[in-house]
């Protein structure tokens, strides 16, 4: 299956901007599409988890990388 990958860079932004920008980016996606997010806010790890739980979107990957954090979320 080829997935349509969209990216969002929230590096340098603090709470709640990474969540708000993620929400906005996800709204523009079609169901099943994937959003890749880069972040530096340490709070975004738990906050994005909670965002997915509340909104029903699926967190496929949540990793610590060299320059911060990396997430992949699939829209429901």
């Amino acid at each position, binding site marked *: 299956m080829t997935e349509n990958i969209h990216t969002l860079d929230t590096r*340098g932004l603090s709470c709640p901007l990474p969540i*708000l920008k*993620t929400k906005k980016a996800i709204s523009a996606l079609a169901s099943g599409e994937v959003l890749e997010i880069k972040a530096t806010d340490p709070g975004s790890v738990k906050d994005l988890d909670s965002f997915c739980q509340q909104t029903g979107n699926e967190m496929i990957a949540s990793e610590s990388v060299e320059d911060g954090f990396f997430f992949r979320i699939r829209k429901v």
Partner: protein
Amino acid sequence: MSSTAPVSELSNEQMNQWFDQRFAEKMAEREASHIPSMTIIATKGTLDMAYPPFILASTAAALGWDVSIFFTFYGLNLLKQNLDLKVSPLGNPAMPMKLPEGPTWIKGKEIPMPNSIMTLLPGFENMATGMMKKTMDQKGIARIDQLRDLCVEAEVKLIACQMTVDLFDYGKEDFIPEIEEWVGAASFLPRAATADVNLFI
């Protein structure tokens, strides 16, 4: 025997079992379709106290919640077209602030804001405000007008207190047009009564 016996033939125990199961199903259905809601009462008009209502409201809206903010007294300042919010060092004893600029050893030092003599110095409030704005900018924290725009975009309901406008002789043209209604406590309370989360800030 037919599997769907008439109600009159069901034993008490069967009835209870049926009810418990049905009740659990209905409750789960209800929970799944429930949209959480939050009402916030914003009463403060300083730069630092402008953040909590707008951060919580915009985030809750991003989570799909239904959010209203009732702005009253000094909180009404947060709805002005020209946001000119300041930090008040007065009565803010826990406010730490670091210099946003200068050599590292100075930047790392915490400067206690609420020194009673400093607070009385002319221009001190502007300086404290400038320092906080600069520090926030460097840390990638959103500006209040940005957060407010995001709230408007996310359809957070902005409700203004009519009495405050009359009290301070404000002109309605000084405020952003996105305000949904100008009402009093009696109009806001029924909304608060059905909300899952109520905050007074």
